C-alpha cells in the first residue's frame, strides 16, 4: 500500500466512524452545519416582526441563532411597546414551538379524525365553497380573530367570490361598553388611545390596563411615566373596584366598593364636576339632565352604598378638582353587566368635562381591537347559523367554544349537521376539535402579514425562522381559494407587498427593506380632527336611561368576577408552559385556577387555602380550590380566566377550571358585551383539599427590611445613615471596597477588575407584571418544573416577583423582583466544599455547573433563597427544545443554578469591546429581565464606574439593600417604593 492510499483509507475510515456516531438531534447545539454564506456561527440574526399574542400588536425583534428563533425582545422602534414585551409576548415562542402544534390536516370521519393531505384539504374546502355558494349569501360564513386589513380583505374577497356576506371578527374581550360610550359621546364606536403618560391623576373603575386592557405594555409604560417618582413628584392613581386586580394592587389607593357600586362613585364625581366651575360652558339641557340624574348622589349616600368612607370620597373629588390633567378609565376588559355601559358612559363624560379639548385621548392611535364584533353580534350570528345553517363555516384562530358561555349558541352552530366546519388553527383547541376539517396554519412568527396595531401603524409580521412544519400560512391558503383568473400571482407575501405598494406605503425595494427591518411603518403625533362632542340633552337622557337600567346591587349576593388573566388572557396562553409555570402575581400560585375569596368568608365557612369548593350559578357549576385574598370586597369572588381547557394540548388540557362555565350567554343589552359578573347561587365546600402550587410562604415581611416604602416627603429629607451592627442601624454597604469596614468585616474587600456588575431595582416602578420572569426563562433555559413539583416548592425561576404587604399599611402591596443578589460577601461561596459558587473578577457570583456536586449547602445558606436546584432532568418535549439558548448550558439533574446576571450577555459585550479596543460602555450589557421590563424598573451596570446609571440611581435617598444588615453586601440595590394616600 502506498502512502496516498493509506491516507485515503484512514481519512475515509475516520469520516465513516465520525458519521456513524450520530447523536440525538436535540443535542445538536448548531443546527445549520451547512450554513448560508452570510451566517456567522454563534452570531444571532435579528428579525423585526409583530407580536400577535393579543390584539395590541407590539413590535418584536426575534433573535435567530443558527436558523432557530430563540428569544423575542421588544422592537424599540415600535411606538406601542418601545422595545418591551409582556409575559405573554415573551412566551409567544412556546406557541411557535409548542409540542402540541398541529402539522397535518385532519378530517372528521365516523372513525374519528383522519389525516389528509393539504391538497386534499384544499380541494375539500373548495368543494364546500362551491357547493355552499349555491345556498345564497348566507351559504358561507367565516369567523376570524382580529387580524390585519390585508388578510381580512383577502378573506372578504374570497367570501365575496362565492357570494357570501359578512366576515365576523371574534375577540372575547371586545371592549363593547367602552365602544358604546365613545359612540355616544364622540359619535363613533372607536377605541382611541389614552395618554396616561400626560395625566397627573388616574382614576380607574376596573380598567386592568396593566394586564389585559387594550394594550398593556404601552399603558404600563405610560402609567409609570406619570406615576414613577420623578424630581420629588409623582402622579396619583386611585382604583375604584370591588377587587384588586394586578392593576388595583398598583394603585396608590384602592377604594374598595361593593360589587356593582362603582357607578355611584362615577355619578358622584359627575355631580361634583357639574357643580364645579368646569361645567360653565355646557349646554343647559345637558347640565340639567345630568344634575337631575346625579343630584341624589351625595357623599353620604354613595358612602353608604359603596362602603367607601365619605372622607375618602371627598378627598377623591378634591384630587380630581385640583389635578391639572386628570384621566378616568372605565370598566375592565371583562364586562360586569348592565352597569358597565352606564359606568363607561359616565366616565367618558367625566373625561370630557375635565379635559374638553380631549388632550389625553389620541384619536390617531386607535386600537386595532375596535374592529372586533360585539358579543351580541356574535351571538346573533351563531343563532342564525343554528336556525339556517350555512353550508360552510370557516374559523380562523378563534376558540369560542372555550371562551363563550356554555349556553352560547356557538356549540349549536358548530354542531349543525348541514354545516361543514373548517377550523384554521395552530392547535387542537376546543373549537378545532368540534370542526369537521382542521387545517393547521402557520404561527404568526412563521408567516408574512401586515398588522395595523394602531390606526396609524402598519406593523410587519414576518417569518423569524425557516419553515419547520409542513403547514401553510393562512394567507397562502386563501389565495389558492380564489377562483382561477381572479387569483393574484405569487404567494401571500407578494400579494401583501403589492397591497403596500398600492397604498403608497412603499415605492421602491429599499422602502420595503426598510419597512421590513424597522418592523413596520409607525406614524405618531399626526394631527387628526377631534370629534365634535355631543354634550347635549340627548346624551344626558341616554346616561339617565342607562343608569336607570342598572338594577340596584343586592348587597347580600355573592358575585363571581371572571377576571381576564395576565398570563393566559382569555385562555389562548394556557398551552404555553411558561405562562402556567410563572405564578399569577396576585395569588402567587402557578398552574392552578383558584377562586379568590375574602378571608372573612373563608373563616365563616371554615375553609383554608386549597379547599375545593363547588360554585353554582344559574348557568353552570365548577369545582375549584379557594385561596384567601384580602384585596376583595366580602361579597366578591374572583376567578381568573384562561384555564380549564378540555383540549388544547398537554399543558392546558384538564388543568385548572374555566369560570366561563358559570357565565350566561346573555349580553349587556345596550353595548352587547358578555357579562363576566355572575351572581352565585350556591357555594359550598366539596370536602376535598388540593395542595396549591403556591410559590409564596408569607406576604408579611415580619419587619425584616425586605420591601421598603417611603413617603414623597421623606425622600426629600434623607435619613441619617446608621453605622451599627443591628438591623435598624446597619449602614448601606456597597459591594465595593468602600463598603468594607474593619468594625464589621474580617476579610478584606474583593479586588475587582474594571467592572463590578450590579443592578438597581426601582420598586416604585415595578408593577409585578412578571415579564422579566418570562424573559429569564427564555434567555437562560430555565426548566419547567410543572404543577406537582411547584406544589412541593421546586419552582426553578431565577428571578421571581415577590409580593409583600407594606409594613405600615397591609392593604398595600409591594412587588419585589428577587434574583441572585451577587453579594460581595456571599454566604453561598464560603460553604461550598468544591468552590462551585465562585466570586468572579467582575463581582459576579458565578455558579460553575460542572463543578457542582449538589450538596445544596449554598442554597441553605442563601438568605435570599434564590438558588435553584435541579431536582430532576427537566424536559423540553420536542420541538420546545429548539428554543433553548445555545449560549447557556442546559443544567442536568443534581446541580445548583441561579441568576447569572446573564453572564453570556456580559461576555458578548466583552468580546465586542475587545474587538473595538475599548471598555464596555454603560448600558451596553442588558440582561434579559432588564431588557423586557415595560416600566424600566430594572437597571444594570458597572458599580465601579462612578458615572454609570446604576451608581447615580443608588445615590438617592431611596436606595437600600434587602436585608443588608446581614452584611452580605448585595450588588442588587433596591429603591424604595414611594407611597401616597388619597
Amino acid at each position, binding site marked *: 500500500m502506498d502512502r496516498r492510499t493509506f491516507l485515503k483509507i484512514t481519512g475515509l475510515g475516520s469520516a465513516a466512524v465520525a458519521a456513524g456516531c450520530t447523536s440525538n438531534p436535540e443535542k445538536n447545539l448548531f443546527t445549520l452545519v451547512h450554513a448560508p454564506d452570510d451566517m456567522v456561527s454563534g452570531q444571532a440574526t435579528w428579525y423585526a416582526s409583530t407580536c400577535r399574542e393579543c390584539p395590541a400588536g407590539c413590535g418584536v425583534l426575534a433573535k435567530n441563532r443558527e436558523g432557530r428563533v430563540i428569544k423575542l425582545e421588544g422592537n424599540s422602534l415600535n411606538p406601542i411597546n418601545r422595545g418591551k414585551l409582556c409575559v405573554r409576548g415573551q412566551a409567544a415562542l412556546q406557541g411557535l414551538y409548542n409540542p402540541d402544534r398541529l402539522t397535518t390536516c385532519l378530517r372528521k370521519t365516523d372513525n374519528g379524525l383522519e389525516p389528509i393531505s393539504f391538497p386534499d384539504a384544499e380541494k375539500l374546502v373548495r368543494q364546500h365553497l362551491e357547493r355552499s355558494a349555491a345556498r345564497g349569501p348566507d351559504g358561507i360564513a367565516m369567523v376570524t380573530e382580529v387580524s390585519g386589513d390585508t388578510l381580512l380583505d383577502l378573506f372578504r374577497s374570497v367570501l365575496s367570490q362565492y357570494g357570501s356576506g359578512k366576515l365576523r371578527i371574534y375577540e372575547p374581550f371586545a371592549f363593547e361598553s367602552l365602544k358604546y360610550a365613545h359612540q355616544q359621546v364622540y359619535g363613533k364606536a372607536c377605541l382611541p388611545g389614552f395618554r396616561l403618560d400626560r395625566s397627573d391623576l388616574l382614576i380607574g373603575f376596573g380598567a386592568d390596563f396593566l394586564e389585559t386592557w387594550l394594550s398593556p405594555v404601552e399603558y404600563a409604560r405610560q402609567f409609570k411615566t406619570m406615576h414613577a417618582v420623578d424630581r420629588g413628584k409623582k402622579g396619583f392613581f386611585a382604583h375604584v373596584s370591588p377587587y384588586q386586580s394586578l392593576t388595583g394592587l398598583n394603585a396608590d389607593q384602592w377604594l374598595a366598593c361593593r360589587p356593582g357600586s362603582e357607578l355611584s362613585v362615577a355619578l358622584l364625581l359627575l355631580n361634583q364636576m357639574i357643580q364645579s366651575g368646569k361645567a360653565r360652558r355646557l349646554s343647559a339641557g345637558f347640565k340639567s339632565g345630568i344634575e337631575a340624574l346625579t343630584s341624589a348622589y351625595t357623599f353620604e349616600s354613595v358612602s353608604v352604598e359603596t362602603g367607601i368612607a365619605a372622607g375618602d370620597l371627598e378627598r377623591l373629588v378634591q384630587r380630581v378638582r385640583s389635578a391639572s390633567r386628570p384621566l378616568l378609565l372605565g370598566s375592565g376588559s371583562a364586562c360586569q353587566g348592565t352597569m358597565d355601559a352606564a359606568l363607561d358612559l359616565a366616565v367618558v363624560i367625566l373625561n370630557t368635562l375635565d379635559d374638553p379639548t380631549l388632550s389625553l385621548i389620541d384619536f390617531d392611535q386607535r386600537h386595532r381591537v375596535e374592529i372586533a364584533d360585539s358579543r351580541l353580534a356574535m351571538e346573533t350570528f351563531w343563532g342564525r347559523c343554528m336556525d339556517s345553517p350555512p353550508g360552510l363555516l370557516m374559523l380562523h384562530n378563534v376558540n369560542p367554544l372555550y371562551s363563550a358561555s356554555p349556553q352560547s349558541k356557538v356549540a349549536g352552530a358548530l354542531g349543525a349537521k348541514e354545516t361543514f366546519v373548517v377550523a384554521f388553527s395552530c392547535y387542537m383547541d376546543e373549537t378545532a376539535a368540534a370542526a369537521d376539517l382542521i387545517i393547521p396554519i402557520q404561527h404568526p412568527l412563521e408567516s408574512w402579514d401586515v398588522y395595523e396595531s394602531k390606526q396609524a401603524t402598519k406593523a410587519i409580521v414576518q417569518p423569524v425562522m425557516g419553515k419547520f412544519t409542513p403547514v401553510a400560512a393562512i394567507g397562502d391558503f386563501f389565495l389558492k381559494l380564489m377562483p382561477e383568473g381572479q387569483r393574484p400571482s405569487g404567494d401571500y407575501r407578494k400579494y401583501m407587498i403589492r397591497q403596500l405598494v398600492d397604498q403608497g406605503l412603499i415605492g421602491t425595494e429599499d422602502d420595503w427593506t426598510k419597512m421590513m427591518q424597522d418592523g413596520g411603518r409607525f406614524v405618531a403625533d399626526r394631527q387628526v380632527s377631534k370629534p365634535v362632542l355631543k354634550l347635549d340633552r340627548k346624551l344626558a337622557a341616554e346616561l339617565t336611561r342607562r343608569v336607570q337600567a342598572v338594577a340596584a346591587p343586592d348587597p347580600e349576593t355573592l358575585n363571581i368576577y371572571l377576571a381576564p388573566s395576565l398570563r393566559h388572557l382569555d385562555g389562548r396562553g394556557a398551552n404555553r408552559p411558561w405562562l402556567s409555570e410563572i405564578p399569577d402575581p396576585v395569588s402567587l400560585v402557578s398552574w392552578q385556577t383558584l377562586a379568590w375569596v375574602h378571608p372573612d368568608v373563608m373563616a365563616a365557612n371554615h375553609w383554608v387555602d386549597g379547599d375545593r369548593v363547588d360554585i353554582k350559578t344559574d348557568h353552570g357549576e365548577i369545582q375549584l380550590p379557594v385561596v384567601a385574598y384580602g384585596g376583595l370586597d366580602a361579597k366578591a369572588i374572583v376567578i381568573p380566566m384562561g384555564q380549564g381547557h378540555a383540549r388544547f394540548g398537554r399543558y392546558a388540557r384538564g388543568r385548572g377550571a374555566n369560570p366561563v362555565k358559570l357565565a350566561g350567554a346573555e349580553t349587556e343589552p345596550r353595548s352587547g358585551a358578555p357579562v363576566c359578573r355572575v351572581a352565585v347561587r350556591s357555594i359550598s365546600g366539596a370536602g376535598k383539599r388540593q395542595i396549591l402550587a403556591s410559590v*409564596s*410562604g*408569607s*406576604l*408579611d*415581611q*415580619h*419587619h*425584616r427590611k*425586605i420591601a421598603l416604602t417611603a413617603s414623597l416627603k421623606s425622600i426629600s429629607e434623607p435619613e441619617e445613615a446608621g453605622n451599627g451592627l443591628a*438591623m435598624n442601624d446597619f449602614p448601606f454597604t456597597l459591594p465595593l471596597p468602600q463598603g468594607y469596614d474593619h468594625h464589621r468585616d474580617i476579610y478584606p474587600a474583593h479586588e475587582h477588575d474594571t467592572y463590578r456588575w450590579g443592578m438597581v431595582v426601582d420598586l416604585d416602578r415595578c408593577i409585578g407584571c412578571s415579564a422579566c420572569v418570562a424573559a429569564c426563562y427564555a434567555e437562560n433555559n430555565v426548566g419547567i418544573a410543572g404543577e406537582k*413539583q411547584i406544589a*412541593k*416548592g*421546586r*419552582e426553578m425561576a431565577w428571578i421571581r416577583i*415577590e*409580593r*409583600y404587604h407594606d409594613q405600615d399599611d397591609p392593604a398595600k402591596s409591594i412587588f*419585589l423582583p*428577587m434574583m441572585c443578589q451577587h453579594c460581595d460577601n456571599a*454566604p453561598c461561596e*464560603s*460553604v*461550598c*466544599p*468544591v*468552590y462551585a459558587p465562585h466570586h468572579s473578577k467582575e463581582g459576579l457570583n458565578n455558579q460553575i455547573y460542572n*463543578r*457542582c*456536586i*449538589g*450538596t*445544596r*449547602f449554598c*442554597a*441553605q*445558606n442563601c*438568605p*435570599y*433563597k434564590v*438558588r*435553584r*436546584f*435541579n*431536582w*430532576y*432532568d427537566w424536559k423540553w418535549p420536542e420541538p420546545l427544545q429548539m428554543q433553548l439558548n445555545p449560549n447557556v448550558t442546559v443544567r442536568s*439533574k*443534581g*446541580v*445548583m443554578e441561579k441568576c447569572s446576571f446573564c453572564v453570556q450577555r456580559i461576555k458578548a459585550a466583552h468580546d465586542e469591546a475587545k474587538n473595538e479596543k475599548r471598555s464596555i460602555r454603560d448600558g451596553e450589557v442588558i440582561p434579559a429581565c432588564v431588557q423586557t421590563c415595560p416600566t424600566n424598573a430594572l437597571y444594570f451596570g458597572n458599580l465601579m464606574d462612578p458615572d454609570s446609571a446604576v451608581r447615580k440611581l443608588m445615590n438617592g435617598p431611596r436606595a437600600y439593600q434587602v*436585608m443588608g444588615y*446581614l452584611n452580605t453586601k448585595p450588588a442588587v440595590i433596591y429603591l424604595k417604593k414611594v407611597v401616597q394616600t388619597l
Partner: protein
Amino acid sequence: MTALTYEKIDDAVINTLSPPGKGYWVTIGLLFLGILMGAGCWLYQILLGIGVAGQNNPVHWGTYLINFVFWVGIAHSGTLISAILHLFRAGWRNPIARAAETMTVFAVCTAGLYPFIHLGRVWMVFYMLPFPNQRFLWPNFQSPLMFDVVAISTYLTVSSLFWYTGMLPDLAIIRDRAQGVRRRIFSVLAMGWTGEFEQWRHYARGYLFFAALATPLVISVHSVVSWDFALGVVPGWHTTIFAPYFVAGAIHSGLAMVVTLMIPLRKIFNLQEIITMKVLEQVAKTIVFTGLIVGFAYSTEVFIAWYSHNSVEMETFRWRAFGDYALEYWIMVVCNTVFPLFFLFKKVRTRILWLMVICILVNVGMWYERFVIIIGSVAHDFLPYAWGLYRPTLVEFGIMIGSFCLFFFLFLLFVKHMPSVSMTEMKETVHAGGAHDH
C-alpha cells in the same frame, strides 16, 4: 451472685460465638433484604434525581442529613465509654466497652453513607478530594463540609484502630480455643499475640494512647458536625452554643443506644453476670446528666433568641415551638429532657422494661432534635416569601430503613462472630467482682 472467675468470663464470652440458630440467620437475611431495599431506593434516586426525595426550596436538606447527624451522634458514646471512661478509670464501662465501641464503628460507617446519598451528583464526589489536577482546582477548606470529611474520616480511622487494638488479646483467646478454618482466621486477626509481657506492656500503653487520642475526637467530631450548621447564617443555626450542645446531644443519644443494644444482648447471650444491672444503672445515671445538659441547651437557645432582640431569631424559635413543626419540637423536648428525668428514681432505672422504653424514647427524641434543627430552621428563615415545609418521601424512608438494617446487620454479624465483651478488660475488674465503681 457467684463471683466471676477468669474462666467463667472466657466461657461466657466464647459461648456467644457458638454456631447460631435458624432465628439468627433469618434475622440476618431479613436485615440484608432491608439493606438491598435501601440500596435500591438509592439507585432509583441516582437514576432519577434528588427530586424523588422530599427536599425542596427552602428545605434543601432533609432526612439524609438528619440521619447523618443522628448516626454520628450515636457513634459518640462508644468512644466516650471506651476511651474517656477508660481514662477516668470508671470500671463499670468495661463490660460494655466493646459493644459500645462496635456500635461506634458501625454507626460511623452508616453515618458516612449519608453524605453520599445526600449529594445531587454523587458520581462527582471525588471533587472533594484534594487531588492534583491540570486546572489547579482545589477543595474549599473553608467549607464546613470539608471539615466534616476530615473529621469523620479521622474518627472512623481512630475508632476502628482503637477497637481493633482492644480486641487483640481476646482474638488470641478465641484463636487458642478454635480449630480448623476458624483458627486460621483468628490467627491472622490476632496478629501473633502470645501474651508475652512485652506485648502486654505495648498493648496497655497503646490502648491508653489511643484512648487519649480518641478522647478529643469525641469532642471535636460532633463539634465539627455542629459547625455544618453553626457556620451558616441561618437563624436557629448560627449560634456559638452549637458545638457543646451537639456533643452533649450526641452522647445523650449514644448512651441511650448503648442501653437499647445491651439489654437484648445480655438477655440473648445470658450475660447478666457480666453486663450487670449496676452497669446499666450507671449508664442511666449518665443519661440523666446528658439529658440535663441537652435541656439546658434547649432553654439557652430560646433564652438567647429572646435576649438578642433579634426579630428573626425570635420568630424562628417561636415558630419551632408553635408553628408547623410544633409536634416534632415537643417530641424532642419531652423525649430528651423530661423522660430521662425518670431515671432519677431508682425503681425506674433498675427496671429493664423502663430502661428500654425510656432509652428508645430518647433515641426517637434525638432523631427529632435533628429534624427540628435541620428542617425547622431553613423552612422558616430570613425571607418570609420563601418559607415552605418539607415532608420525607417513601424513598427517604426506604433509605432510612435500609440504613438501620445495615447497622443492625453489621452489629449482629459482629456479636456472633467476634467477642462482644472484652474478656481482657473484664478480667481486669474481676478482683472487684466484675463491673464496679472503683
